[in-house]
């Protein structure tokens, strides 16, 4: 018989490639949350005040909260179609550790939903009159924070993917868990604005990211097994 078993690395890459390909073909799933993010942020100057002093004060918080909400929107695409078409069962029946396959899906999800948000954030920061010296911190904090949101959201989606009507439950599970990221993300930007070093907050976020990368895929995998059961 032909066919040597693949290495875990090859299975990881195949999963990553597949998910990126699906995202590329289903552009809605990427574009909608991204547009939502931009629109929500743009509403604040209209609704609150166009004065730059006021906007500067709330800029970091507004961007961070909008990122959180946009990530909620994009989460559902992570496992739902795979669950519906049976690909998830194939994933679970792979001889490779589920940890790496789930991690591949999470990374792909972040690349298409988290990264664009990070890249566009300086532009929105400019609109919200955030002083330019804080751009670096903002981007860095988002770069650390958005993958954590993908990883945490993945657990919640995995838990709820088998339920018929999910709606709000995803937000109810995920948003409270995202509070620490929100706190440290905004504090990092604030401290830059107050001419203090944001390194402390950013390193805490780095720690949270490392913990999430090493533990969240395990939890997601276990949750997927329960959902498929």
């Amino acid at each position, binding site marked *: *018989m*032909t*066919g*040597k*078993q*693949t290495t875990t690395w*090859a*299975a990881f890459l*195949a*999963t990553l*490639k*597949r998910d990126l*390909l*699906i995202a590329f*073909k*289903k552009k809605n799933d990427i574009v909608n949350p991204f547009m939502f993010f931009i629109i929500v942020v743009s509403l604040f100057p209209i609704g609150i005040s166009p004065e730059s002093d006021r906007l500067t004060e709330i800029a970091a918080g507004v961007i961070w909260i909008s990122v959180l909400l946009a990530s909620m929107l994009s989460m559902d695409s992570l496992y739902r*179609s*795979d669950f*519906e*078409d*049976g*690909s998830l*069962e*194939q*994933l*679970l*029946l*792979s*001889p*490779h550790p589920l940890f790496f*396959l789930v991690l591949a899906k999470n990374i792909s999800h972040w690349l298409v939903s988290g990264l664009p948000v990070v890249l566009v954030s300086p532009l929105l920061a400019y609109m919200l009159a955030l002083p330019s010296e804080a751009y670096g911190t903002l981007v860095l904090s988002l770069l650390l924070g958005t993958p954590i949101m993908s990883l945490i959201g993945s657990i919640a989606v995995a838990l709820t993917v088998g339920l018929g009507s999910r709606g709000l439950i995803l937000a109810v599970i995920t948003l409270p868990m995202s509070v620490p990221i929100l706190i440290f993300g905004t504090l990092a930007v604030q401290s830059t604005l107050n001419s203090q070093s944001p390194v402390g907050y950013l390193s805490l976020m780095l720690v949270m990211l490392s913990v999430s990368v090493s533990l969240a895929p395990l939890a997601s995998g276990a949750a997927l097994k329960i959902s*498929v*059961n």
Partner: protein
Amino acid sequence: MSSAAPQTFSNSNADKTMLAVRDLFCERDDRVLFKNLDFDLPEGQVLQVQGSNGSGKTTLMRILCGLNDSYEGSIKWYGQEIEEQAASFFSSLLYIGHRVGVSKVLSPVENLRWSCSLKQAVSDEQIMAALKEVGLRGFEESPCYTLSAGQQQRASLARLIISPALLWVLDEPFTTLDSKGVAMLEKILQRQAQTGGSVMVTTHHSLRIAELTLLSLG
């Protein structure tokens, strides 16, 4: 079996038994689906699971694959419990369920490339040959949402041709196939049995396969 066969395979029946299920009990929503279920699946056999709707055929298949763990009893793969050797069991297993595992936005080739490489290395030539054999020539690069249900089923079944897995667990693989497709799948199942592999299949068709045994539920 020829006399030159290795001793381990010619000697006792136990060595040839791929899957041994003992005293399986499963209950769903306070309804007993099956109890004291015993059966063996030796190498080179096609086991057709029969039973009326709701008798637990799909549940049985999912239990055997490790997708459902709400059961009591023992399931042994070559003499060892499946949970104790999940990775090696999974690499010898191929499961196709009701949901065939074909992503609608991807083409058959892209689908196969992923689902096969979860288990074994696969070349594009193998994929093309398999798709040709299941009658999807000319549809290799079409997104699956443009294909009919039967064609999607065929795209999923192409995995059988590529897969070196010893055990195939197929849940209603015949449902959406036309008569040519049924004949084709019977041929593929027969070939698997003749090369020493085994198949568990649920279907209401009467299969024309020499190596067939029946298991009735309910």
